[in-house]
């Protein structure tokens, strides 16, 4: 009884006071800013306190293209945030490199280096889509357990709280992905790409 209400209180507190990191990367950041503005007003959820220092922020909205040059900084910022911390990957670029995924300097998804809680597709996602994702994150937080094996990562002692910061290499970042958290799903090859007969 006490444990559940404690858990409820904990979850309620966390979800009602998610302070995002003041952090924008590209076009999506403009929509992120628009979300905090009068018409959409992220402040209604208590989340307008954009903290410029990662120490005081709870949520990192990766809004925009993560280039390879920027990726180490993003990971370092994430590492420097205090637990519990969440990541919303906003926009096509942050999820997968998006329209720029063919670029040599574009990271194909920030989830290669840090764990992401919610992905928002869109280029850029509408402010409402960000709000929707934010609500989704709140729901996720609400479902988290304080104890037991199902408890979230930040409550588990053995789970890492910081991840490998990639280094600049001669041609690419090293490592190109963090294998501990990112696994490409296995896909049947014949389905992975168009078979030649299907093309004209």
């Amino acid at each position, binding site marked *: 009884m006490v444990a559940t209400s404690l858990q409820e209180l*904990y979850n309620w*507190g966390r979800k*009602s006071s998610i302070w995002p990191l003041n952090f924008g990367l590209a076009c999506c950041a403009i929509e992120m800013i628009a979300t905090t503005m009068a018409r959409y*007003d992220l402040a*209604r*959820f208590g989340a307008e306190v954009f903290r410029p*220092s990662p*120490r005081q922020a709870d949520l990192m909205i990766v809004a925009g293209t993560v280039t390879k040059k920027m990726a180490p900084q993003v990971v370092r910022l994430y590492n420097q945030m*205090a*637990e519990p911390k969440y990541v919303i990957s906003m926009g096509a670029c942050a999820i997968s490199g998006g329209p720029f995924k063919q670029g040599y300097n574009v990271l194909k998804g920030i989830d290669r280096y840090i764990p992401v809680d919610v992905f928002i597709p869109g280029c850029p996602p509408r402010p409402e889509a960000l709000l929707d994702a934010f609500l989704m994150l709140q729901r996720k937080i609400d479902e988290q357990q304080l104890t037991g094996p199902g408890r979230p990562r930040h409550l588990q002692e053995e789970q890492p709280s910081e991840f490998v910061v990639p280094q600049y290499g001669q041609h690419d970042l090293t490592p190109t992905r963090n294998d501990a958290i990112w696994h490409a799903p296995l896909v049947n090859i014949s389905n992975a790409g168009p078979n030649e007969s299907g093309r004209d």
Partner: protein
Amino acid sequence: MPEMIDQIFVLLKQWIMGYVPSGLQPLCSAILSVLPILVVFPLLFAITTVLERKGLGRMQNRYGPNRAGPWGILQPAADGIKSLTKEDIVPRSADHLVHLLAPILIVIASFLVYSVVPVGRNMVVVDLNAGVLFFFAIGSMVELAVFMAGWSSRSKYSLLGAMRAIAQMISYEMPMVLSGVVAIMAAGSLSTVTIVNMQAGYTGIWPHWYLFTPWGITGYILFMIAATAESNRCPFDMPEGESEIIAGYFIEYSGFKFALFFVAEYLGMMASSAMAITLFLGGWAAPFSFLTWIPSWFWFFAKLILMLMVFIWIRGTLPRLRMDQLMNFGWKFMLPLSLINIVSAGLWHYLPSGFTRWSVISLLLLLSCFLLSRNLRRNKWFQERTYRFAS
């Protein structure tokens, strides 16, 4: 009956004290006087944060927090719970002990100043003979705490922020003290209670607040500006200037330690406002003689909240100054003006009362204000401009 309500807390305390064995009486009395402060002001802090966020929202055509609890009033509670359960990070290279002590010290200092604030008739923790001095002396501890915070973090931005903060605080502490001196001269006491009592009378329906004298209003405005600077509020929030030095001296603080800085900032702001109310706005005295039936503590808090609203209003409007301008303003405008204000308060005392004294002193103050501000503006880079157009 109005007296009853007015003194309800005092009576309550006396009633409780009646049940306490006499050996414990002093301690109990102390605890009972301290307890309300510990409850009321943090609560007020919480309310102020919501008010600020909602007020700013309204100024900016939006609602502000309205989801946590009814109308969002539980927002601070959520923030508190969140901060409490957040990880506490101390940078490796930081000075751990000082890093820990800084937020504690700043909160202690912010609380201590409330011991001399009279929040109502007969409602003050201690009526110190040198109450105002106590206020300033304890207030100056904040500077040290800020320095400790910025220095111990060993981050470049925090150090910059701390240096800015100290430079700013020491520059505005003088005007703050000196502008308070006029009220002390008039009241003839450093005791906050006496100062308020001196202002509690009425002429007709008009109160005897020091605000309603030329030197009083000057002093009040100077005091408020200095108080804004002391509590690092906009437009003097350079020490934590987000857009410049990220978060200033508390950049490396996380979790509840950071929250403590937040608390201290608001407590400091409220304390300065409370002192301004005490010195110039008649403390708990009602604004009109026919309103004296409303309890004194109500008036105090009404005034306090009003002043906090002004702080919020200013924050919602103004951009911040630059460091050198801030220092210039402090040393070249505020300080001389507050000195002149002291002199004019002295003159006021020696001049015969009546219209002459009013006009002479007002003129003196206006003139010096004008001259000083002209001196500030006597700058090529401080002018309105007209533009040409090519077609």
